[in-house]
């Protein structure tokens, strides 16, 4: 079954503009990690925001885990889509500790479950010793791990990552690429990774595509 199914998706910022995304289609199967490559300004971030529900397409449809989340007649709010996202600058809540950041997406669950999920996530990203820290007390790589753990904790159907390595040093990148691949594999997470860097895709992804697309679907 396809976890993500995008059909004929189009988007422009205002009515008269050229569409930034023009009749884009994409299907992703369970456990796949799709790398999206493309030059700056080609609409990669916009595509992720459309899937997340942070923007509304002008036409086309998106289905996630068998449920239609947006088409011409309906729109499901981002919080109800079961989509996780790691932002380029991580956007960790500055007034919350690592622990509270990760637990933030677990609010519906019973207490014990939340505790055990937290520990599980901390272990997954190897940050057990840092749960009392605030984001500004972490290095870039550590922040990135926390952002990843926070996005994974609610067990989304699909994880979106927008240039997750762009804020990191080159040395750190190789190491983290490897870790990320393991983490995603362990969690059996269906993901979309947006990047400039062919190396990211080679190291992490099971599949890749270029935007703007030349042949319309894959």
């Amino acid at each position, binding site marked *: 079954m396809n976890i993500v199914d995008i059909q004929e998706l189009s988007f422009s910022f205002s009515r008269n503009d050229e569409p930034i995304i023009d009749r884009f289609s994409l299907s992703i199967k369970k456990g796949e990690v799709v790398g999206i490559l493309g030059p700056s300004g080609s609409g990669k971030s916009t595509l992720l925001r459309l899937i*997340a*529900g*942070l923007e*509304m397409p002008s036409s086309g449809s998106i289905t996630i885990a068998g449920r239609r989340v947006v088409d*011409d*007649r*309906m*729109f499901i*709010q*981002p*919080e*109800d889509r079961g*989509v*996780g*996202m790691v*932002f380029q*600058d991580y*956007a*960790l*809540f*500055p*007034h919350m500790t690592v622990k509270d950041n990760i637990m*933030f*997406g677990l*609010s*519906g669950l019973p207490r014990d479950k939340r505790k055990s999920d937290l520990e599980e996530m901390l272990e997954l990203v190897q940050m057990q010793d840092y749960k009392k820290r605030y984001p500004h007390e972490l290095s870039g790589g550590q922040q990135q791990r926390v952002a990843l753990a*926070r*996005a994974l904790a*609610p067990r989304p159907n699909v994880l979106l990552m927008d240039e997750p390595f762009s804020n990191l040093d080159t040395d750190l990148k190789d190491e983290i690429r490897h870790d990320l691949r393991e983490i995603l594999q362990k969690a059996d997470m269906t993901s979309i990774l947006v990047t400039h860097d062919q190396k990211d895709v080679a190291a992490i992804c099971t599949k890749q595509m270029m935007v703007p697309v030349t042949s319309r679907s894959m």
Partner: protein
Amino acid sequence: MELDKARRYFQKECNGWWLISMVGAGVILLPILYVFLSLFQSPNENWIHIRQYLLQTYTVNTIILVTVTGLLTAFIGVLLAWLIASYDFPFKRFFRFTLIFPLAIPPYIAAYTYRNMLSYTGVVQSTLRNQLDIHINSELLTLTSVSGSIFIFTFFLYPYVYLITLAFLEKQSAAYIENARMLGQKPVPIFFKIILPLSRPAIIGGVVLVVYEVLSDYGVTSYFGVHTFTTAIFQTWFGMYDVDSAMRLASWLMIMIVGLVFIERLLRKRRRYHLPRQSRSIVPVRLKGGKAVAASLVCGTIVSIGFFIPVIQLLAWAGMTFHTIWDSQFFELLYQTVYIAVIATAIILVFSTIIANVTRSPSTFSYILSKIVTAGYSIPGAIIAIGVLALFILLDGWLAPVYEWMELGEAPLILSLSLVMLVVGYVIRYMAMGYNAMEVGFEKVGNRYTESSRMLGHGKTTTFFKVELPLLKGALLSGFLLTFIEIFKELPLALLLRPFNFETLATKTYQYANDERIYEAAIPSLIIIAVSVLSVIVVQLLDRRVKE
């Protein structure tokens, strides 16, 4: 198809936040529209009389006040800004800051202070007479009507021009002034050939604020007995209880304001300079000898007239009346003022926060909404007051059957005699202050935390309380302070909309002054001034923090 899309949009955007914003916008818009509506009703006899005999006087007086004050404040404001921006002289840092202080003295307080200082029995004339044995025509010094008003407005409103021009000169003009200096130009030609034309947009911006204050003034002009549109609105209501004519006057005043905005746009558009993008701060030239003394003297004189002299005089009067004024009744008055200001400010901040949150995502809708919300601030208090008053009287009429059913009597005035009316007036007038503070706050927080939170499964409301609110604390605090202080010292709305027997510090001060009980007015005046100085300082500090 389009209908489906509209429904989809609605599904995305429509929620409690949106609905509350609409209510807020409605409350603000209704009285203003109601005032305009009066233009289309058939005029009553009163109005015909007003139009025939009085309208011309109001117009002429208003135009004279506005033009002369505008020119004088422009001159003083630019002169001071130029001195401070491009020269160094003794006490400059002190003057740079204190030259703003005259804004902290509400002009009506300045008016009665100066009028009494300069009167036959006042400190100036009696000193001349008794100590120096100089006898002058007392008429010469007495502040009256139009010229008195212009004097007061000029010395207590020039800081608007000064502040805006100073900011502009300090940041933008370095290249031009330094070039001119290098080419050997003398200061005076530099002032006329370069400073004046260059800072035109800033000067216009400042003068528009001055003009706006003059147009909305009630305290000074009524104290000096000048008939303007604003005083006429009050007189028509208090003297004749003629709401319809008052509203008609208000809508004419409103048309003048719209005209003013138009003129401002026009003046600003015609000439736009391409200022160097890489703007650096101007390096002031050190003045020596006589020039330095002259510069200090000019600044010193103006700040003395605009702040220190009236404050010292008020302190002297306060000393004389301290024992009679400073009692439990006075605390009651203080308490009432704080009480109503806190209520109004709290309501304003709740609405502002909600509306600022809704208008964060840019769209035509949020643009219009933000314009409506801030409309009240560019409309004189008297207009808002009369609109609110008329609307509440109408509302009481509609509610008469309900009152009767509740056995409150036949067609009583309940709402229009309650504090609700004044609070609504404040909310309309000062919503812009709260909204601007919250808008800046949301802008600083950005969208990233909000979006993260929503991606983690929290809706708009939970996100607000868990993520945005903690990050907005600073904005809320500064918004609260600024709004509270404005309401605390507000005069025209309070005069018109307060319930019978309800006084604020400002209305009490005004009454003392009007009853020629000048000494008693000193203590409440000083409190108002102290609070305003505080607000000036807060604004400056916030400004500095934003810059850093």
